[in-house]
């Protein structure tokens, strides 16, 4: 018998404010009936607009005693709707889901590499790693404006790259990694596909074991629809099998992910 879980739960919104251009932080009262999430997991948020029924998966940014911090970018209609939600109101949530980052192994030096809204999950991850005695370099790429840097600085050295060059290093995170000659015993990354592909190549070249957190469009978030798949390298005819980002992931060993 598997452990029972609470279903869709209306969570109280404690705060919902813009923290950068088109980037919002929403803080939810975390109900005790829900499992406590770990770094790298995500929750499903649901719209009020009953034309939009599918979940919006959002990564755990930080979890306090009883507060869940999420940071979301306004990408489409659903996240735009979330910006209208007011503190004091409710938002429907299911989760947490996903495997989360693996924090096993003897503490050493860790590289955390993120791009855009791949940055939020780095906060809880950094916090957990530091608590386990790791030393951290956090390398974050943004289009032009950084966020969450203050939180991340609590746990390690933050290195910023922007495409526009308006903040920190002008260029992408791979270039910054090289430019600052950063290295480590392990690497964690989250961000857009092309960036992760770059990280995969970079880490392989350096011989650093890496974990990548992937994104895919989801129908359920808990393994039922087989909608959210990604190619995982396998020794078969086609060279891969499809695994579910929501349940087998979102975090995969970098060496196993087959990018196109």
């Amino acid at each position, binding site marked *: 018998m598997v452990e029972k879980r609470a*279903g869709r739960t209306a969570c109280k919104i404690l705060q919902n404010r813009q923290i950068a251009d088109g980037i919002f932080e929403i803080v939810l009262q975390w109900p005790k009936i829900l499992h406590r999430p770990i770094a790298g997991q995500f929750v499903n948020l649901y719209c009020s607009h009953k034309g939009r*029924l599918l979940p919006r998966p959002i990564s755990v940014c930080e979890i306090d005693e009883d507060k869940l911090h999420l940071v979301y970018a306004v990408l489409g209609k659903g996240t735009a709707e979330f910006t209208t939600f007011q503190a004091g109101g409710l938002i429907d949530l299911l989760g947490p889901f996903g495997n989360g980052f693996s924090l096993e192994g003897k503490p050493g030096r860790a590289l955390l590499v993120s791009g855009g809204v791949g940055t939020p999950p780095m906060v809880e991850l950094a916090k957990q790693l530091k608590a386990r005695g790791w030393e951290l370099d956090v390398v974050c790429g943004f289009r032009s404006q950084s966020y969450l840097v203050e939180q991340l600085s609590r746990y390690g050295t933050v290195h910023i790259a922007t495409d526009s060059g308006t903040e920190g290093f002008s260029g992408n995170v791979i270039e910054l990694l090289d430019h600052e000659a950063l290295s480590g015993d392990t690497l964690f990354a989250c961000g857009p596909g092309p960036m992760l592909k770059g990280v995969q190549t970079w880490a392989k070249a350096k011989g650093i074991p890496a974990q990548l957190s992937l994104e*895919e*469009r989801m*129908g*359920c978030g808990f393994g039922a*629809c087989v*909608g959210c798949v990604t190619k995982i390298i396998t020794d078969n005819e086609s060279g891969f099998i*499809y695994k579910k980002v929501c349940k087998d992931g979102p975090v995969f060993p970098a060496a196993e992910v087959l990018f196109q």
Partner: protein
Amino acid sequence: MKLAVNIAGVELKNPVMTASGTFGSGRDFEPWIDLNRLGCVVVKGVAATPWAGNPPPRIVETWGGMINSVGLQNPGVEYFIAEDIPWLRQFDTRICVNIVGRTVSEYVAVAERLAGEDVDLLELNISCPNIKEGGVAFGVQAEAAAAVTSAVKKVARQPLIVKLSPNVSDITEIARAVEGAGADGISLINTLLGSRIDIWKRKFILSMKHGGLSGPAIKPIAVRMVWQVAQAVKLPVIGMGGIMTGEDAIEFILAGATAIAVGTASLLNPEATMQVLEGVESYMRETGVEDIADLVGIVK
């Protein structure tokens, strides 16, 4: 209050089934619901050999629905027999295996392989719009639908439900064809073929361009087709398409469905099947219905 229904000689403790492909083999739902309370678990499409499925993106949202192009990814019938039947048999519920294939002989192979296995019902999926190879072609031509039905019927040891595609001009023609070919029941509707374009990237969102539309948006089409088919054939009908609540389920039952299946709703809320069941029960209580059978097809 009697909730049990009979589908082709198989008694279900209640009329609530799961729609194939939206419930896996049930494992993903165990944290939320008691599978013993389901009338029947209809498992995800099972093929003779493992199928890889389509590349992502496989899912896109639409108003009141979703489109999927999973492409029937499944680990094949051997895996299903080894892993899923024993697991499902822990629960006091019926097992219905959704069978998929690219050719008549592939469909036959699955039914043949399952002949000696401990499952209660077979559901022939001749209607999935998500594979290029043709599954759907069987579902839109009466002769092809009849041919695959009778071929599978010859080897099947469990009652055979045939699942129809809604992407047809005349659903009753196909229904009559599969009835004539020996089907023991009919389930409908599978998804409607639809697509969405990303206007900013100027390309289809799904890797396969089109996919199957499901969810509450399609319910009126499903209700109409279930009613038409119930009028046209003598077989028991399993109704589905956009069922979100017990009231939706009752609509299908009144239209002629002996049992109903919950699909997309389970993806949006893993407890949906239980809520539908409770909704059916409370409708029966409120309106003083003793036996669910008294509701089946009474709207003419």
